[in-house]
């Protein structure tokens, strides 16, 4: 793993712009005037202590929370408030801190749900499972199989996800997000609770996704060595406010970040 951009990797213009976003729940201010931007093709990390508002930030970006103030612009389209289901059609996919898979369904079905927006045939065709509906199902299956291949989960294709170990469930969740072929992928603690090897695998997948598909990645992670290694720029939040923003080296050297979160200087 290295921080240097690999060959062929291209950082483009701003794809996501978060301007002055605030979010309150009653009297609690979860986010307070946070602004940052994400460039196309970049790996952007959001870090901070527990309760800093990192997950709330992601929830605002994909419309699950409606910010009380401020504007979020994605691909040039500004929105103050939007419905949650709209974010997927705009090209945003995400994974969750606590795995949010569909427990009763197989790995394959879970990943196929990621293709839902690409499938248009109505229920009568589906009831027949014939002609256009069958063709559509097979075409999307092929895309899904590529994702399965990419994440090396062929052997658990037909296993019900509720029975899978934690690390694999995390991978299936990533697969489901990738199946939608998103422009931007939001990862909420993709490596929480994993052992060293699983973390290495996950890092490799994240970098490969970024590299091969040019997907922009915004991730929240607590493992500082991972964050500092794989991300291009880092935002630091504390008590809902942005306290630092910059390359991993700049952030690491920032005294406020050290005080609020990192504790001792990393070496």
């Amino acid at each position, binding site marked *: 793993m290295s921080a240097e951009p690999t060959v062929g990797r291209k950082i483009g213009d701003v794809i996501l712009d978060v301007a002055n976003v605030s979010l309150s729940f009653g009297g609690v201010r979860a986010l307070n005037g946070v602004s940052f931007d994400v460039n196309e093709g970049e790996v952007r990390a959001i870090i901070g202590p527990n309760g800093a508002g990192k997950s709330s930030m992601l929830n605002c970006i994909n419309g699950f929370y409606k910010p009380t103030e401020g504007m979020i612009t994605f691909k040039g389209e500004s929105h103050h408030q939007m419905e949650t289901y709209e974010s997927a059609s705009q090209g945003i996919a995400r994974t969750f801190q606590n795995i949010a898979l569909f427990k009763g369904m197989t790995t394959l079905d879970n990943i196929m749900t990621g293709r839902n927006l690409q499938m248009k045939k109505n229920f009568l065709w*589906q009831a027949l499972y014939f002609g256009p509906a069958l063709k559509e199902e097979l075409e999307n299956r092929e895309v899904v199989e590529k994702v399965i291949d990419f994440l090396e989960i062929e052997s658990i294709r037909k296993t019900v996800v509720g029975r899978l170990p934690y690390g694999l469930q995390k991978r299936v969740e990533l697969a489901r997000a990738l199946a939608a072929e998103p422009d931007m992928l939001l990862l909420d603690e993709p490596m929480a609770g994993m052992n060293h090897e699983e973390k290495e695998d996950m890092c490799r997948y994240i970098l490969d996704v970024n590299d091969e598909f040019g997907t922009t990645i915004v991730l929240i992670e607590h493992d500082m060595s991972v964050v500092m290694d794989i991300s291009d720029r880092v935002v630091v939040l504390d008590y809902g406010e942005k306290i630092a923003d910059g390359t991993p080296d700049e952030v690491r050297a920032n005294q406020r970040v050290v005080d609020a979160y990192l504790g001792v200087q990393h070496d």
Partner: protein
Amino acid sequence: MFYREAGQFKSTYQTDQAIFPIVQDRWFMALVFIVAFVVIPLVADEYWHQAIIIPFLILALAAIGLNILTGYAGLVSLGTGAFMAVGAYSTYKMSTAFPDLNIIIIFLLSGVFAAMVGMVFGAPSLRIKGFYLAVATLAAQFFILWVFNKVEWFFNYSPSGTITAPPRELFGVLVTGPEASPVARYYVCLVFLVVFAFAAKNMARGRLGRSWMAIRDMDIAAEIIGIRPLQTKLSAFGISSFYCGVAGALYIFCWLGSAETEAFDILNVSFPVLFMVIIGGLGSVLGAILGAAFITLMPIFLTNAPPMIGIHLAADLQKHIEEIILGLMIITFLIVEPAGFNRLWQIAKEKIRKWPFPY
């Protein structure tokens, strides 16, 4: 040893996604079809048709409908009886108003009416879940039956308040009403069940079914993937009620012959169908059919079993004992296997696959 997928290689996704990917399953299904379409009409007498097989087929259809809603989409409904009544009364109205219209088309149109009513009463499901939704559908149950009882237009102002199935023909054979032969009515119900069961299975394994299950398992994640909750829930209500509506139409036209709203009472229909779905296995078409078989066949078995082994009881005592035993069986079964008959069936298949080795 005999039942396994070893050696059956799939080289396309299409064969991999077939309903019965294993060749032995296909043989088994073929056998079931031969029994259902050829053997049963030959051997079964009128009592078997009227008391056992036809109600089983009709209730299985309703159970598949409810399973779409409760099993796949996770929305509990106690309004099955009402949606069936909508199907039955609209069939009655249409077949008396347009006597020349093909009865099958009338059945299907009645399903569409039931679907529309189901979607109206399903609208609150966006806001309320679980027991609260069950209570909301309970309101549908009481309200709809009350309307059918009060508004005389629905039963063509007949003084008794009952609706009676008029005799209607299909391919020159009488299929509805009291004069129709049991075999003809059996075939109508069987074809409906087979076609609709396959349609349900297809929807369940396609995009629609995945959306339903996604909403059921984790609605927030489903929404973030782009599944619209209202549309998905309403589609489940609509399609489920369509199935119930058709089942309700068959219930009057191919089985009872004539009835009043009492036939669609919550204790007569809604609860038993819900039990079928739970006992059969939530989220499974096969489970709905097995559950319907259990709930319709078991009382008849319990009625006939004591005389067979030489015990003769007073009729009312017999009836009470029967209900006690049935209740006990349901409780025991749900404690032993909460996932229902479908799960048992899967375990059995798994065991046969590995036989003669333990694992």
